[in-house]
C-alpha cells in the first residue's frame, strides 16, 4: 500500500555539520589509527630513539585531537547560540506567566489550609460526640440488662452500633478539594509533599554509604583535595593516597 502523505518539509536538509570537513578529519584519524597499529605491532620500545619517535606520534595525535575538538565546537556554536536565543525569548514569556501564577497560588493555598483546619476541627467534634454516644449506649445497655429489659437492650445495642459507625466515619481522613468555578479548570487539592533535612550527618552518610553516587562524590572530593595539595604531603581520613607515573 503506497504512503500518499508527503515527506516532512526539510527531509532533504542533510546533516547539521559540514560532512566534507568530517571526512577530511576522518582520513587523518584513519592514518593515525593505522600508525598506532604499527606501533603496537612493533612491541616494546627498547631504544631512546624509538621512544622519541613514539613521543612524536603521540604529539601528532594530540594535536589532531585538539584540532578535531576545535572544529567540533566551531560547527556546534551557531546551534548553541540559536538554542540560547530561542530559550531566552520563550523563557521570558514563560516567566511572566509563572510569576503571575505564583502571586495567586499562595492565596488559594491559604484558603485550602484554613478549610482543612475547619474540616479537621469539625471531624474531631463529630468523633467526640460519637464516642460519648457510644459510651451512653453502653451504659443504657447495661442498665437494660440489669432490668432484664430485652427491648431496651436491643435499642441500646443499635445505638452503640450507630455511634461506632459515626466514629469510624469521623476518623476517615479526606483532603479538602477545590472545584473549578466554570468547569474549564481542574479540581485541585493540597498535596502532602515530604522532604528531608539532615538531622545527623554521620548517620546520614552511613545510611547511604553503599550507594555508588556516594562513592563517586567521595572520590571526587578527595581527588580534588589531593590535586590542590600540588604534590605536598597530605592525609585524608578514610582514603589511601596512591601514586602512578603517567604521560
Amino acid at each position, binding site marked *: 500500500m503506497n504512503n500518499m502523505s508527503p515527506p516532512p518539509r526539510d527531509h532533504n536538509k542533510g546533516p547539521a555539520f559540514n560532512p566534507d570537513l568530517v571526512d577530511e578529519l576522518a582520513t587523518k584519524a584513519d592514518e593515525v589509527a593505522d600508525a598506532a597499529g604499527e606501533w603496537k605491532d612493533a612491541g616494546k620500545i627498547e631504544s631512546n630513539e624509538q621512544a622519541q619517535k*613514539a613521543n612524536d606520534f603521540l604529539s*601528532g595525535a594530540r*594535536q589532531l585531537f585538539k584540532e578535531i575538538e576545535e572544529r567540533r565546537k566551531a560547527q556546534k556554536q551557531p546551534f548553541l547560540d540559536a538554542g540560547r536565543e530561542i530559550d531566552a525569548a520563550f523563557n521570558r514569556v514563560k516567566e511572566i506567566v509563572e510569576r503571575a501564577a505564583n502571586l495567586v497560588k499562595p492565596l488559594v493555598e491559604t484558603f485550602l489550609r484554613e478549610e482543612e483546619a475547619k474540616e479537621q476541627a469539625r471531624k474531631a467534634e463529630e468523633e467526640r460526640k460519637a464516642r460519648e454516644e457510644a459510651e451512653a449506649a453502653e451504659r443504657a445497655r447495661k442498665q437494660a440488662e440489669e432490668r432484664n429489659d430485652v427491648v431496651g437492650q436491643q435499642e441500646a445495642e443499635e445505638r452503640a452500633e450507630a455511634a461506632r459507625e459515626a466514629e469510624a466515619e469521623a476518623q476517615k481522613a479526606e483532603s479538602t478539594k477545590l472545584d473549578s468555578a466554570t468547569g474549564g479548570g481542574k479540581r485541585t487539592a493540597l498535596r502532602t509533599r515530604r522532604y528531608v533535612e539532615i538531622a545527623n550527618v554521620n548517620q546520614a552518610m552511613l545510611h547511604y554509604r553503599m550507594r555508588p553516587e556516594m562513592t563517586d562524590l567521595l572520590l571526587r572530593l578527595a581527588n580534588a583535595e589531593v590535586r590542590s595539595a600540588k604534590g605536598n604531603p597530605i592525609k585524608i581520613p578514610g582514603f589511601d593516597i596512591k601514586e602512578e607515573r603517567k604521560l
Partner: protein
Amino acid sequence: MRQPTPLSNLLRWHRDSLVGKRPPIHENDPHMGWFKVRMVRGGPYVPARIWIDREICPLTGELACDERLLCEIDGERRDVRREWAWLSKNPISKAEYDELCSLRQSIEAMAATHAPFNLQEHVIRPICP
C-alpha cells in the same frame, strides 16, 4: 713532536653533557660532539656535528699539522665558534644523530628546515618508509 689529543679527551665535554653533568660552556671554547638544532621555531630538528680535523703521521703517530675543530649543520660547513653557543644547548648521542639523519631521509618534509614541522601532516611510524 706533538701527540694527537686522545679521542676520549676530545669527547669528554660531550660525554659529560649527555649524562647530565652540565660541563661549563664558554663562547670561544667549542667541543667535539653531535648535536641537534632547529632552524626555526617549531621546525624539524637538523643534525649537526663538530669534529676534529687533523693529520697523523702513520709512521710516528704524531700530529703532522695543528688540530682544528670543524662544524657542519645540516650537511653545510659552518664557523664552529659562531655556532657553538646554540649547538652546545642540545648535545645528542651518536646513535640519535644517526637516527635523525635516517629520519630526515625517510620523511621528505623534514628537508623544509625553515618551516614548522606539522606532526598532524606527518604521522610518525615505528619504521619510517
